[in-house]
C-alpha cells in the first residue's frame, strides 16, 4: 500500500502542527475575487499586516460583473464599488489582476486552468466553494471563508484539519450523450449532499480516465455539493498535455522537472484510501434535478420519487422540495415546461460545454416564450467560441449571447429569474432563491440538456436531438 495523492500533496505543503492541533498548510495558489476579498483586505489593514506572498495570488472579477453591458462605471453602483475595491486592493498589494480589459477575465475557476495557473500537486485556495474544480488537475483545492482569505494573504498558509479520502471508482463507460455533469449528479443522488462531510473525494476508474480535462473540472466542481470540500482526479498524460504551453505553465526548460514532480504525487495503483465506493457509469442516463438540493436528481426517463420510497431521513427534504417546485411525487421530469434556460457557470461555462450546447442548437430555434442565455465562462472562452462561430449558432437559434461572468448561477448581477420561473440550468445549485427570485425554481442538468430544453420548451432527453 502507498500514500494517495491527497496525502502526498498535503505532506509536501505541511509547514508544521499548530497549537490548536490543526496543520499549518502552505497554499501554492490563491485565487481572489470581488465578493469574498474586500473584507479580508480590510482586516489585514486593520492589523497593520501586508500580503506576504503577492506573487502567489491572482485576482479577477466574476460574481457581480454584468454580462450584458460591461461598460464602466457599472449600472449597479454597489457592483461598481466592489469592482473598484478589488482593483485598488490588488494594485496596492502587487497582486496580478485580470480585469475586464485584460482579455483574461472570467470566472475564477475557468481562468485558473486556462491560464495554466492551476497545476498538479499544488494546494489551491479561494474564497469560493467551487474551488474544488481545480482538483481536476490533481491539486488539493478547496473553498475558504473570508477570515481564511485573510490568513492566506497574511501568511500564505491555512490552519486545517486533514480530511479523510474516499475513492469513488466509476467503472464501465458513460454512454453516448452522457457526460461529466450527469456523472456527478448521479453520484450526488447516491451519496447525498452530506455524504462527503469530513472527506476529500478521489474520482477514478475507467469512466473518469476517459473524461477530458474540462469534463474532469465539471466533475470536481460539484464535489462540494456532496459535502466534500475537495475532489480530485490523479493526473495523467491528458492533464500534462492540457497544461503544457499555457501562459503560467512551467517553461519548457522546467518541463521535465514538472513532469517528475507531478508523476511523483499521483496516486499509484496500490494507493490506500479511508473509504471506497463503486458506481457503474454505464447505467447512467442524462440527469435532471427535481428538488431544491443537488442530490435530488433522477434520470430523464424516470419519475420523481414517492415519499414512501425514500429513506425516512430524506422525506422532509423531499416534501419541502415538492412544495417549492410545484411538483408531485411520481411526476415525470420529462415534459416539464420551462421558462428560462441558462448555459454557463464555473460548472459548465467552458468551450467544450458551449460546443456541446451549440451542436444541439444548430439550425433550430428556441421555443416560444423561453428566455435562453449563453454566458461564456471567460473572455478566452468567448473568443474561442466566436472563432468557431458558436456565438452565431446561438444567436441564430434565439439565445442571448453574453459577456463572461457568473451570471444567473447566483444572481449577484442583473441576470435573475423572475417570480416562480422554472429554469433549465447548467449551473451547480438548485437552492431556493439561488437564481435571484425567492420563488424561482431551478432544474440542474448538462449544457446539452439545457439547450435541448430551450429548444423544446420542456425537459427532454437531449439524446433525441
Amino acid at each position, binding site marked *: 500500500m502507498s500514500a494517495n495523492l491527497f496525502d502526498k500533496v498535503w505532506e509536501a505543503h505541511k509547514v508544521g502542527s499548530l497549537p490548536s492541533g490543526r496543520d499549518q498548510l502552505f497554499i501554492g495558489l490563491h485565487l481572489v475575487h470581488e465578493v469574498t476579498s474586500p473584507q479580508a483586505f480590510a482586516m489585514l489593514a486593520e492589523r497593520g499586516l501586508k500580503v*506576504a506572498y503577492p506573487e502567489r495570488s491572482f485576482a479577477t472579477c466574476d460574481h457581480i460583473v454584468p454580462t450584458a453591458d460591461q461598460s464602466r462605471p457599472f449600472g449597479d453602483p454597489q457592483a461598481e464599488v466592489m469592482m473598484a475595491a478589488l482593483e485598488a486592493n490588488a494594485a496596492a498589494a502587487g497582486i496580478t489582476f485580470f480585469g475586464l480589459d485584460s482579455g483574461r477575465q472570467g470566472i475564477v475557476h475557468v481562468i485558473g486552468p486556462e491560464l495554466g495557473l492551476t497545476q498538479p500537486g499544488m494546494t489551491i485556495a479561494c474564497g469560493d466553494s467551487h474551488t474544488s474544480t481545480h482538483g481536476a488537475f490533481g491539486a488539493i483545492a478547496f473553498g*475558504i471563508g473570508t477570515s481564511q482569505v485573510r490568513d492566506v494573504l497574511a501568511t500564505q498558509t491555512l490552519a486545517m484539519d486533514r480530511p479523510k479520502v474516499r475513492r469513488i471508482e466509476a467503472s464501465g463507460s458513460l454512454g453516448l450523450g452522457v457526460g461529466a455533469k450527469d456523472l456527478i449528479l448521479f453520484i450526488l443522488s447516491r451519496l447525498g449532499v452530506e455524504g462527503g462531510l469530513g472527506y476529500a473525494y478521489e474520482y477514478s476508474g475507467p469512466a473518469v480516465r476517459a473524461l477530458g480535462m474540462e469534463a474532469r473540472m465539471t466533475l470536481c466542481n460539484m464535489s462540494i455539493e456532496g459535502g466534500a470540500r475537495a475532489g480530485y482526479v490523479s493526473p495523467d498524460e491528458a492533464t500534462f498535455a492540457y497544461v503544457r504551453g499555457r501562459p503560467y505553465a512551467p517553461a519548457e526548460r522546467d518541463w521535465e522537472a514538472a513532469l517528475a514532480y507531478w508523476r511523483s504525487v499521483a496516486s499509484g495503483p496500490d494507493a490506500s484510501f479511508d473509504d471506497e465506493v463503486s458506481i457503474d457509469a454505464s447505467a447512467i442516463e442524462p440527469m435532471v434535478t427535481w428538488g431544491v438540493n443537488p442530490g435530488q436528481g433522477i434520470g430523464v426517463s424516470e419519475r420523481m420519487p414517492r415519499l414512501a420510497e425514500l429513506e425516512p431521513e430524506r422525506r422532509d427534504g423531499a416534501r419541502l422540495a415538492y412544495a417549492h417546485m410545484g411538483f408531485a411525487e411520481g411526476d415525470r421530469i420529462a415534459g416539464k415546461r420551462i421558462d428560462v434556460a441558462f448555459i454557463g457557470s464555473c460548472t459548465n461555462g467552458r468551450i467544450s460545454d458551449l460546443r456541446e450546447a451549440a451542436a444541439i442548437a444548430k439550425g433550430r430555434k428556441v421555443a416560444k416564450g423561453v428566455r435562453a442565455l449563453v454566458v461564456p465562462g471567460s473572455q478566452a472562452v468567448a473568443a474561442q467560441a466566436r472563432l468557431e462561430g458558436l456565438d452565431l449558432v446561438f444567436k441564430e437559434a434565439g439565445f442571448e449571447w453574453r459577456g463572461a461572468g457568473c451570471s444567473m448561477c447566483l444572481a449577484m448581477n442583473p441576470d435573475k429569474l423572475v417570480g416562480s420561473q422554472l429554469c433549465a440550468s447548467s449551473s451547480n445549485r438548485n437552492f431556493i432563491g439561488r437564481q435571484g427570485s425567492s420563488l424561482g425554481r431551478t432544474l440542474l442538468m448538462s449544457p446539452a440538456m439545457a439547450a435541448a430544453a430551450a429548444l423544446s420548451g420542456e425537459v427532454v432527453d437531449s439524446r433525441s436531438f
Partner: protein
Amino acid sequence: MAHNASARTIVSGRALPLREDDVDTDRIIPARYMKGVSFEGLGDFAFRDARFDESGKPTGHPFNDPRFAGASILVVNRNFGCGSSREHAPQALSRAGIAALVGESFAEIFAGNCVSLGIPAASVGHEAAREIQDLVGSDPSLAVEVDLEAREVRAGVRRFALSMPESHRKALVTGLWDSTAELLPGAAAVRALAGERGRSARLPYLGWARAGS
C-alpha cells in the same frame, strides 16, 4: 499576538429552533444582499427570503417569532450551512444575535467559518437536536448552555453530549480561534519551506519559470 481573541468556553442564553435539513448558505444570506465591501448590516438580511413573502409580509419563520426574540443559540438539524463558502452566512447570524449553534451536523466550510468568528457549532446527533428543538419550542424561556469544556449542551435539566472537531473545540476554549494570530508565528518555517528565490526542496514548482507572459 492574539487579536481580540478570547476563550469561548460556555455560551449561555435562550435558544430558537429552526427545523430543516440541508439549510444552505444562500438561504441564510441570499447573494443579492452581499453586494458590499464589509459585513456591516448583514444581520438584517439573515434568512431574508424565508422571513418575508414576496409582498414583504413577515412569515411564521422562527426569526420573526416574538417568543424567540433575543435568543442567542440557534438549534438546527442536519448539514446546516451547506453550499457556498460565504462567511457572510455566519457573519449575518452573528449580527442577528446568534452566539452559538447546536445541531445534528454542519457543513465543513460553514463550521470552519464559525470557528474563525469564535462561534461554536456543536453537533449533538439526530435525536438530541430534535429533542432540544422540542424543549425550547414548548418553552422559549428555557435556559440553554453550550459548554465546550464539559462537552455538553444543557437545556433546562436535560444534558446532551456534544461533539465538534477537536481542533475547533481547542481553538475556542483556548482563545486561539483567531487563525491569523495562530499562523503568524510560523512565518520563519513558511520561509524555510518556500525556500530562497523559489528553490524549495519539497515544492519544486515555486521555482519554475513560466512558459509565456
